[in-house]
């Protein structure tokens, strides 16, 4: 029997399938339930310093091949999130705290509080708007990314993952700036828009949103492959994973673990167990013993 266990940084996972940030991970009970239903870890909703209601509705558009969302970083603020983490940790599998900010100090402050709440790792959401420059994201400024991670690594003891945005010209310079991270997480959503032609208006209240799901899978695979090839970093693959085949595509491109989000819309949370079972079958069929044996095989 092959083993679908994997490791990301120092964190050991029962299977490669974690819950991606922003999907069903605002309420501690939901995270706990998802951990009990086969996710090997959950990443929390991205949490910032202050409470934010997020954008007003509509915040989601359903497409035949994915979703566009503009939740607008709704979150209770770090100080109100401890109880949810406490509940989630009862799921007895790793809880990864996602945080967003715009300065190194803010990230450090958030991470320290997360660490204090008992999360097993920090994931940096580098896709929020960058205030110093403007128009673009924190994650498109390599110097800032490098500084944030350097600061964090010196101040906290749990692993730090950096989640990169695909909305950049040159992913490699960002990936290199983030090289002190314990792992890179790719990809976040792709900027997109949906217009209702009968209402003659963008559907989302924020107009712009992030495309996730099937539509972005091959964009994600490309980023994972390119970054793995050039940096050798440990990578968590995310974006449009719906089946074990999709998962294997990411693994062969270089991912050591995976996150899934949008597929839950189609398949419900049963998808975690389904993915694990299908992955095991695939490995059995193809003669792989471990996930790490498959990782990056398409690179050679």
């Amino acid at each position, binding site marked *: 029997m092959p083993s679908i266990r994997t490791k990301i940084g120092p964190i050991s996972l029962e299977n490669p399938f974690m819950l991606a940030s922003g999907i069903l991970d605002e309420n501690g*009970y939901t995270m706990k339930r998802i951990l009990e239903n086969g996710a090997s870890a959950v990443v929390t909703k991205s949490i910032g310093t202050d409470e934010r209601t997020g954008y007003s509705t509509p915040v989601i558009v359903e497409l035949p091949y994915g979703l566009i969302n503009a939740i607008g970083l*709704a979150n209770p603020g770090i100080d109100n999130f401890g109880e949810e983490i406490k509940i989630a940790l009862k799921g007895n599998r790793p809880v990864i705290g996602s945080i967003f900010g715009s300065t190194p100090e803010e990230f450090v402050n958030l991470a320290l509080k997360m660490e204090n709440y008992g999360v097993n790792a920090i994931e940096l959401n580098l896709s929020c708007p960058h205030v110093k420059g403007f128009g673009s994201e924190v994650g498109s400024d390599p110097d800032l990314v490098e500084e944030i991670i350097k600061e964090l690594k010196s101040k906290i003891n749990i692993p730090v993952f950096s989640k990169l945005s695909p909305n950049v010209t040159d992913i490699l310079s960002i990936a290199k700036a983030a090289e002190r991270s314990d792992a890179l997480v790719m990809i976040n959503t792709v900027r997109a828009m949906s217009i209702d032609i009968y209402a003659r208006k963008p*559907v989302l209240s924020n107009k712009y949103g992030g495309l996730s799901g099937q539509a972005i899978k091959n964009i994600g695979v490309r980023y994972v492959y390119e970054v793995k090839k050039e940096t050798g970093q440990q990578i968590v693959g995310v974006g449009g994973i719906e089946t074990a085949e999709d998962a294997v595509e990411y693994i062969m491109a270089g991912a050591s673990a995976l996150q899934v989000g949008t597929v839950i819309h189609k398949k419900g949370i049963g998808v975690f167990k389904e993915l694990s079972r299908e992955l095991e079958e695939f490995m059995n069929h193809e003669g792989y013993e471990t996930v790490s044996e498959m990782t990056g095989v398409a690179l050679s």
Partner: protein
Amino acid sequence: MNFSIILSKEVVAKNTVTLKFSFDKRVYAGQFAMVWTPGKGEIPISFSHTGDPKGITIKNYGDMSAPIVALNAGERIFFRGPYGNSFTKPKDGDYLLIGGGSGIASLAPMISKNAHGIISARSMEDLFFLDKFEKSKVIATTDDGSFGIKGNALDALRTLDLEKFQNIYVCGPEKMMKGIYDYIKPKNIAAEFSLERPMKCAIGICDSCSVNGIQICKTGPVFGMDSLRDFTEFGTTRLMLSGKRVNI
């Protein structure tokens, strides 16, 4: 996003209207739509009419409901759905519908000859759909006593002999539903509750409507007594739109 042309608009109570429109998907009692006013927001609203034409009955509570209530016949109503599960069909024999506030809207498709009703509202002018029941089978309650029993739905419920009902269906403010749930729990009666929580996505991914890990928008909104027993969050705490946990 779907849209339909509004065929008719009827004021059914203070600030409360029924809008009817054609929509050729099958809709079951208890299901809801996310109704969008371009530029103004999107909110969950139950189907109060599931036949042909379909209809919704909506009260002006605030910024997002107001522009929907303001729509007129001939205008477009934008919505996605239907979403959610539905009430189970009542067995033969009498059954009871308990609607608090606009909650009676989602129960409206279940009204029939065999239906008994308790409708509660703040005041007389907020009551609606009383006339859809046989006169002798419906009790109204108002907070201010301006019509029917002065009190709430639970006060009315206590006056009834529940033995005669095959099923009880409840929709209203969570506090009211919790009171009813606690009251009937020891009585071993089949009951279903349609839960309301803040909803953003309505497709089971944003977590804003979850109760103990279950997404009301997708697995619900209708739950039986057994499910509710496991919901420690039911009637106690909920998350606000920011995700901050507050007491109910």
